[in-house]
């Protein structure tokens, strides 16, 4: 089980990358900070970093806009 933003839970999959997770949630906003278990993931690693089972993932969208 992976928990996203303290609210949404999805089943863990082996090899689920950060990019794939963002795509699944349709998080297309350009300024997203991703933290896995409170550690920041550099954007360059999004396509390759696999999310571990039981992870607490934060996808923080910087407010911008409006």
């Amino acid at each position, binding site marked *: 089980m992976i928990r996203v933003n303290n609210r949404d839970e999805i089943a863990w999959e082996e090899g689920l990358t950060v990019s794939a997770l963002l795509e699944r949630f349709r998080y297309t906003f350009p300024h997203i*900070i991703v933290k896995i278990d409170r550690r920041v993931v550099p954007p360059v690693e999004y396509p390759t970093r696999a999310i571990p089972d039981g992870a607490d993932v934060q996808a923080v969208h910087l407010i911008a806009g409006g």
Partner: protein
Amino acid sequence: MTTNRVLTEFTYEPSSVERGYTGQTLYVNLSENTVVAKPVTDVMKEKFIGGRGFGLWLLWHGVNDDTKWDDPENEIVISSGPCGGITQYPGSGKSLVVAISPLTNIVIDSNVGGHFGPLLKFAGWDALEIQGKAERDVIVFIDGVSGRVTIEEAPDVPVDTHLVGHWLIEQMAETEEDRYFMSSVSAGTGAENTRIGCLNFSLYDRKRKSPRFKQAGRGGTGTVFRDKRIKALVVKSPPVKGDSNHPADRARIAAAGVRLHKEIHDHDDHQNRMRRRGTPYLVQIMDDYHLLPVHNFKFGSHPDTPKINGEVWEARFTQGLPDGCWYGCTMACSHAVDGFELRTGPYKGQRVIVDGPEYETIGAVGSGCGIFDPDAILELNFYCDTYGLDTISYGTLTAFAMECYEAGILDREKTGGLDLRFGNAEASLSLLHQMARGEGFGLIAGQGVRRMKRIFAQEYGAAPQFLQDIGMESKGLEYSMYIPKESLAQQGGYGLTNKGPQHDEAWLIFMDMVSNLLPTFEDKAEALHYFPLFRTWFGLCGFCKLPWNDIVPPNNRDADEPAKIPAHVQNYVEIFSGVTGHEITKEDLIAMSEVVYNFQRVFNIRLGYGRREHDAIPYRSQGPVTVEEYEARGEYHDKQLSDVVGIDPAGMPTEEKIATLREYREAQYEKLKDAVYERRGWTSDGVPKLETLRNLGIDFPEVVAVVDKYL
């Protein structure tokens, strides 16, 4: 040179600016044809800073408790702020326009770019205050080079803005160089016949050799302008230089400016691409998150959105031009489509520069009305601007009319033949031209959503509750372009404002809805305390908010509270201190704003509004009103019921699900009000407590007298 008849002439010694202030405001009374210089007091600088603060202070003293928008006592006040007019830091040329609004009957404050505000300061004036009404159409010309202010009868000066622009550069400017440091404020014929008039502030685009226009859009300031029979305000100033504000420490400002220029140079291309596509970058993103208003805020996305997204506009805008609306803005979001041939209306066939569209305009006159044709959006944008109409209010009220038409509340007889279905761009354009001519259904629609609700109920027998639910206005002002339905914090961001649902107070959708960073009422209340105050600050100083967070430094993600973009907040602290010589901290920003924000709330109470009942919002801003809306995201809404409300939707008819969700969400909003008022130091009726006013140092007798009645 003009041949207008001069009604009044006032000469003065243009004072130089010291640390961001000239120390004088200009008062013009059009009923009496008087012009007076008023001193800027210490109270004004210490408590009200500038910009919106000066506007509120001057307006407060100019009007009575019962002043209406069209009484001669109503004023239009224009002021930039101590940091307005610096050239080194992107987004430092904004001004605030303040007046009593024809839509809301309370104070509107409207933030605008262009050159007028800073040039007004360099012409010698920290604010321009206009009261009274002229007998016949006039212009006011503030010549800061020769030290002369005139009120002139202006029968031959045009009304529509793109013509005023040409008049300004061809008739008022004597040389090419004159054009650089002259600016006009104008409305248009649409502002004469509606309540949604806007003001256009010009800037001279040296590469295009043409005037361009930015808008003080919200609240009907253009309507007040034409009601006072003003055709144009014109300012001329000495040349602008890097030290025109005579700052206390220009080096600090320059360092911050170069830092941000470099950041924008290095990162804008792969962040929001503001320099190439401007605010339209947001269109597809909002659609992806179900936040783009479609069909009168019924839906948050549409399959045709790619036809009007950022990529499309990047290809339409002329690239490679400076495109800043004040000097030094390298965020450069003020794009234009050049050589656009108008297909309709009185200027049909002319090739014009269209200033925009901005994201808001695309959402309002485009997707909100079901229109996904870029050319239609450009035509609507151009005519709204030149007619002096707020594109946001225009779009939202037209979308409301369209839904009423599709629901059978309106028909072709009532609309005078206009087939106002969603997506009918021709009908929208016809409606717009009617507003300019003051004819037909245009006269009704131009009253705004709140008054249309009343008219449709009283005269066409439409169900008042349905109209109230779908009519996207609060306090009388139309909503701007974000769907707040799934974010309680954003419902508050729109509903718990001073002026009405304009997103410049708080834009919390992502923090709340997506990132879930505001899970409790206390979290939401804290955000609804902080962000409106933070954003208010820009309007006290003369700043644009876009360079604050539409460009993000690369190490921002490692900061505490990255949503606040702390490195940029620090820039603003540096700049304010560098201009004024007053060392401030980032906490001071909030403290400064809190004073003005609370004063504005009391002002609204003084005018008979400003309390809990006036913070009411239409249900469409909170949840699905109709079966169609509910079932468009049926699974999502069902999950809301089960996970959030705690009710199993299985077997429930949709109408019951809607009602259940509604009961829950309406109760949530009431609880939010309680939490926010508490945090802001207000009573449960939304009135600032005496203790709060005392702590802010605005417990002046006349202020206390207003709140006393309710405490």
